């Protein structure tokens, strides 16, 4: 299994392969070469609350706690916080507590309606989930928000306008990313 990790501000690539009696772990610190380690399963023994790890002849009593992508490794009363992740874990995490409608390059009217109030103007940078305008439709006041931080490129309607379903209301700057 392939992972990327961050420890004390440094990035690493890690590859873990399980064999019947041992682990093959390869580490590549950023910008350096791969280093391979073969760890026999008797050297890395897991009990319920700790791991006894014989590494390069040294005996370590290790405890690893954490889940998803954040782990803390305790040993000899010192600890390190490690972020460990791979694409699949990141994708799985991204599906948690998502929000709202998919982001696009513009905000469109989902249905015919009337523009009641507009809160933004071109050039504005609006944080995620803040209302952009209010449109009245289907006897409801729809507060339309963006699902991510956006920069307003163009406001295509004005207060009082009647719009069709699918009409473009606001255009966002493309390729706008957080600096």
């Amino acid at each position: 299994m392939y992972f990327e990790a961050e420890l004390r501000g440094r990035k690493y690539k890690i590859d873990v392969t399980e064999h019947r009696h041992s682990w093959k772990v390869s580490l590549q610190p950023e910008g350096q070469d791969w280093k391979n380690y073969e760890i026999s399963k008797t050297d890395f023994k897991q009990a319920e609350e700790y791991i006894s790890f014989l590494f390069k002849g040294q005996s370590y009593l290790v405890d690893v706690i954490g889940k998803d992508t954040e782990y803390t490794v305790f040993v000899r009363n010192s600890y390190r916080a490690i972020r460990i992740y791979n694409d699949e874990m990141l994708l799985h995490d991204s599906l948690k507590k998502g929000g709202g409608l998919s982001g696009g390059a513009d905000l469109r009217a989902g249905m015919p309606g009337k523009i009641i109030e507009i809160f933004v103007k071109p050039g504005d940078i609006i944080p995620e989930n803040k209302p952009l305008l209010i449109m009245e439709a289907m006897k409801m006041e729809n507060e339309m928000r963006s699902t991510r931080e956006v920069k307003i490129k163009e406001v295509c309607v004005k207060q009082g306008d009647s719009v069709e379903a699918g009409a473009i209301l606001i255009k966002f700057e493309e390729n706008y990313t957080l600096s």
Partner: protein
Amino acid sequence: MSAELPFKRILIANRGEIAIRITRACRELGISSIAVFSDADRDSLHVFLADQAYNIGPAPSKESYLNYKKIIEVAKEAQVDAIHPGYGFLSENTTFAQACKDAGIVFIGPTKENIEAMGDKLSAKALMKKANVPCVPGSDGGVETIEEGRSISNKIGYPIIIKATAGGGGKGMRVVRQDSEFESAFRACRSEGQNYFANPTVYIEKFVSDPKHIEIQVFGDTHGNVCHLFERECSVQRRHQKIIEEAPSPSVPPEVRKRMGDAAVRAAKQINYVGAGTIEFIFDNQTKEFYFMEMNTRLQVEHPITEATTNVDLVKEQIYVAAGRPLSFKQEDLVQHGHAIEARICAEDPITYKPSPGVIRACRHPQGPFMRVDSYAYPGYEVPIYYDPMIAKVITWGETREEAIDRMQRALTEFVLTGIKTNIVLHKTILDHPKFRDGSYTTQFIEKNFEVIEPQLFKQVEDPMFLIAAAITAYNDRKSKDVRQLNLVSNWKRLGRKIALRT
């Protein structure tokens, strides 16, 4: 023994390791121990070890351990004869002491008058002067005006420190090194005194430049006897929180020790002190002069190192004295033997000092010769967020100071505590530091001379070890999603077999 003592049942108005300490003394004396606990402490070790336990309210201290009305109510219900307040919480609360008296329960500690006398710093100083105890040269009273302050300061000689009389914990005090800085510091202290302690009175003291915190343990009984049990040095501290204490102090010459002890006894006698108490001195390591700072009218956290070097059980002695007995020892019988060190193990980040509550996973206390561990940690215990982060004290004794230090290093290496962050690595680094080893450290040690850099603390363990352990654990965590280990029964197969039988 309890047949001779008037106490059959004692309530311990405290928590954590000190509650366990008092429980142990009670048990040795055949006295029933009654523990109290807040909602957050239901699973705390002191509850398991005592004979009885009562819930006294929600987790926040104000609603439980500081709720003296509730504690008295519980004490009456449990029909206790005495209450031991431990340290902190209500141990120096005169209202509580009075309430115990009113309820006919013995308060194991000094009298209400003792506590009041030493509670106000200015009046305490005045009493000390009467007892001929050297005090820090200073204003001998509140300073009203800037002119008065500057004149006193120039007479004593800079550097000086301005302090709010009701202040504490570092608030309301400013060091002034030269005359030009005096005015702004003066104004700042007065306003802090008013804002934090509702009392703008400030006084001035000489500021000692190589200061060490040396304190003398004293003990008085109701028959007028007072003894001292020598000194403890507590200069390893940060923001007035002690980290490491040792006895005896490596910097106090024997002759000065005698003078300090005698002065402490005079101080205690001056106020007819009853029970265990501690006189804190500020010790100038250059001149070897000492000056009275304040008196703590209670048992202290670091009492074990006095017990280790003088062979006196201080908590049992507190119970004896509260029962009206004279002190079990005379001054001439007491000697300091060997050297003891105490390390306060706290659930906090060793670099940022931020508290680190959480669930303890593995916990193995150090054992072996000349070792004492007063702890309430155990595997699976959840360290609560509401209280002091100290979870254990490790005390080592050695014939020499070097032996005690080496033993402590050994103990700290053996001590296993995982699942939460602890400051064990901080202790190990302090014990290795040359300024600690040669004894020249002052109260400025942690804040000025001691730089906490990560590589220094963690230099023992290499990065690949961490990465490999984390990677294999992450791999195993991912593997646990593998359905094969769920051993599912296959309906598909079963129905298929059944259908196949029909033909």
